[in-house]
Each structure stands twice: as structure tokens, then as C-alpha cells.
């Protein structure tokens, strides 16, 4: 049994197709969606969104947004999305290092919060990307 997934950002459409299973990261924790899910709406935390369709798994990095789940469809209105294959390890590492450095200095509360968020975001991106590079992992991503 499959359901309709729309993964969208304000700037483009990433996925609109029938899928079998979606795992996403809500603010209250990870959740999985199968056909017939109870209607629910959640805000998303930066994290991985895994889509299973048939035997293939696709992975995306979602920086936040809103997801609406209905029994036969799911809409993810994401702030920004990256396909796991597109994550640039170098960039992510530098960004993480910058955030760490900034946090080690005395800064204002607001700045501290933005950098903490940034750090969290980069860690998630890196963990998604590194998983892709370790062959044989259960969450391994197939090529499209």
C-alpha cells in the first residue's frame, strides 16, 4: 500500500510520487508514516527524511518546516532540502568548524543560539552524508 508524498520547498518540487514509507524528524522526535496514518501536523527539526519506495531508499536532509500527514497523503513543506548525495562534505565541515569556533568565544545570547542551531544542523548533515559513504549500512542510500 502506497501513499502520495509531496516534498516541496518554496523554490522547487523535490518529490511528488507514490511511496511506501517515510521517516522524518519532528520536533517531538522521529516518526514513521505508512498509509492510513492518523491525520497530524508537525513542525520539523533539522534532520534526515528517508523515503522508501519499493526496494529503494532515498535520503534527504531537511532543515526544518512543516509536515501534514493524512491517511492517503503526506505533504512536507520544507524550508530547505538537500538530497543526501548532494551534500558537500567539505562545506559542511568548514561550516561546523566555524560554528564551533564562534561558540568558544564570548558572544551574546542570541548569537550563541544561532550558532548552536547551526552546529546542530551541520552535525545532522554530516551524519547523513557520512552514512552514505559507509557501504553496507542498513540505511544506505541507493543511487537514483
Amino acid at each position, binding site marked *: 500500500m502506497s501513499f502520495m508524498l509531496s516534498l*516541496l520547498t518554496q*523554490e522547487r518540487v523535490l518529490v511528488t510520487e507514490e511511496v511506501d514509507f517515510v521517516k522524518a524528524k519532528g520536533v517531538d522526535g522521529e516518526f514513521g508514516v505508512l498509509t492510513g496514518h*492518523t491525520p*497530524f*501536523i508537525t*513542525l520539523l527539526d533539522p534532520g534526515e527524511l528517508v523515503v522508501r519506495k519499493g526496494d529503494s531508499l532515498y535520503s534527504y536532509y531537511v532543515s526544518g518546516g512543516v509536515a501534514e500527514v493524512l491517511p492517503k497523503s503526506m505533504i512536507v513543506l520544507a524550508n530547505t532540502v538537500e538530497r543526501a548525495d548532494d551534500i558537500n562534505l567539505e562545506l559542511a565541515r568548514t561550516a561546523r568548524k566555524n560554528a564551533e569556533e564562534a561558540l568558544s568565544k564570548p558572544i551574546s545570547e542570541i548569537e550563541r543560539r544561532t550558532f548552536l542551531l547551526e552546529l546542530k544542523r551541520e552535525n545532522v548533515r554530516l551524519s547523513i552524508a557520512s552514512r552514505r559513504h559507509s557501504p553496507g549500512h542498513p540505511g544506505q542510500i541507493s543511487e537514483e
Partner: protein
Amino acid sequence: MPSLRSIRGRIKSVKNTRQITKAMEMVASAKMRKAQARVRDTRPYAEKIRELLYRLSAIEAHRPNIFFQVRPVKTIGIILIATDRGLCGPINSNVFKQVNRFMAERPGVNFEFVVVGKKGQDFVRRGGLKAVGSVTGVKDKGQIEEILPATQVAIEEFTKGQWEEVWVFYTEFISTLTQKARSQQLLPILPETEADGTKKPSPFLGEYLYEPDTAEILEVLIPRYFETVVFQRVMENFASEYSARMMAMRNATSNAKEVIYQMTLVYNKLRQAAITREISEIASGADAVQQG
């Protein structure tokens, strides 16, 4: 009869004009293709978030939220989306006409504008209307940040209670040949209605589960809805602008071609007449010499 020299000059100048319009047509058509793709890419998100909020607005428990409340209308905020530049056919004036009609239909109501695009600024200034904010020089690259100043002003005015309704006016992109001036109410968000005014049956009538809770979700969702829809309308407007400009320039180019054709005809006739005259003068001169 114009002289040969003057007509040659005119042909040259029309040829230059044709070159310019031709170049503008090509630039517009290249930009148009990108802008059309962008319209395709941005429509789904705007539609989905709109539908989602329609569904939420139909749920009774959300009524107290200011964004779902209908209040007696004293002031309407209008987000007017126009182009920065001219030479794009009638699309701006069609939108302005629609705005004028809209205002005429609502006597006794104040109107305040948030304007996107220079031509919109001109319209507001010419009409002596009140603008509370304006954004010009927006790029067509699809960067939502550029229009955020405009949407933030509008949302602020609405939450402060200065505006009871917010509408957006823009040109919808239908096809390369067709663009249509459109108006749309953005706030308050009301359950979708059929053409006859009855409530459209929602595909989903139950209540959702919310994480973390309703208030927090709406707080994120509503501004996002507002800016996304306005942003999408700006993208529509770009696609319309380039399409209209391309068509206008194509027409101008073919008009120029026609003018050049007609003038070349006249030019050749004149040239031939001049040659004939010269020959007959020489011939009659030669005759005179022989006879003499």
C-alpha cells in the same frame, strides 16, 4: 514627395529600431523560459500551503486566531505587484484597472498599498494613494528574501489591527500568449467557498494531532503561507512580464519589417523615377545636339 536622401535616412533608423526590438525580444524570451520554469516550481508549495490553511481555517477551534477572523472592514491592505520596467504590453495597466475597479466597488473603505515594482510606485503616486511600503529592483532569480520586507510590513499592519483584509493584485501567467490580471484575498484566511458562496466540503473533516501544539504551528505556518504566496505571485508576475514583453517586441519587430518594406518600395520607385528622368533628359539633350 520626400527626397531620396531623407527616405534613406528613415529606412536606416527603422532598421536600427528593428534591431533593438529584436534583441529585446530575444532577451525576454530567454528570461521567459527561466521564469516559466520557476512558476512551475513554485506553484505547488504555494497551493499546498494555501489548501492546508483553508483546511485549518475550517476547524472551529481555530476561530479565535486573528488570522481566521472576519472583522468589519475599514481599511484594506493591497499588495500590488507590478513590473520595474515598461515595454511589456498591457499587463501593468490591466492590473491597475483591476485595482481601480476594486476600489470603486468598495466606497467608504480606506486603501493602503504595499508595492512591488517601480511601475506600481508610479501608479500609487499618480493616484495620490497611500503606500506603507515598497520594494523595487526585485530580481527574478527566485530569492524569497527580497520580498520579505514587503510581506513583513503587511503582516504587521494586519496583526496590529490597522488592516482588516489583505489582498494581492498581480498578473497570473497562463501561457506565453495569455496573462491575466488577478486579485486574491490573502488575509483573513477563510474556508474555501464555491462560486455560489457556499462552503466547499473539505476533503478532511476531522481534527488533526498537533506537534508541538496548534498555536505554535499556526505561528510558523501563517507567516510562511503569506510570504510564500506573495513570493509565488511575484514569480508569476515575472513570467507574465517577460512573456508580454517578448510578444510586444515581436510585434514591434514585425511592424518595423512592414514599415521597412513599404518605405523600400517608395524608395525604389523614387529612384527609378529619378533615373528615368535623367535618361530622358540626356536623350533629349542628345537629340537637340544632333538636330542642331
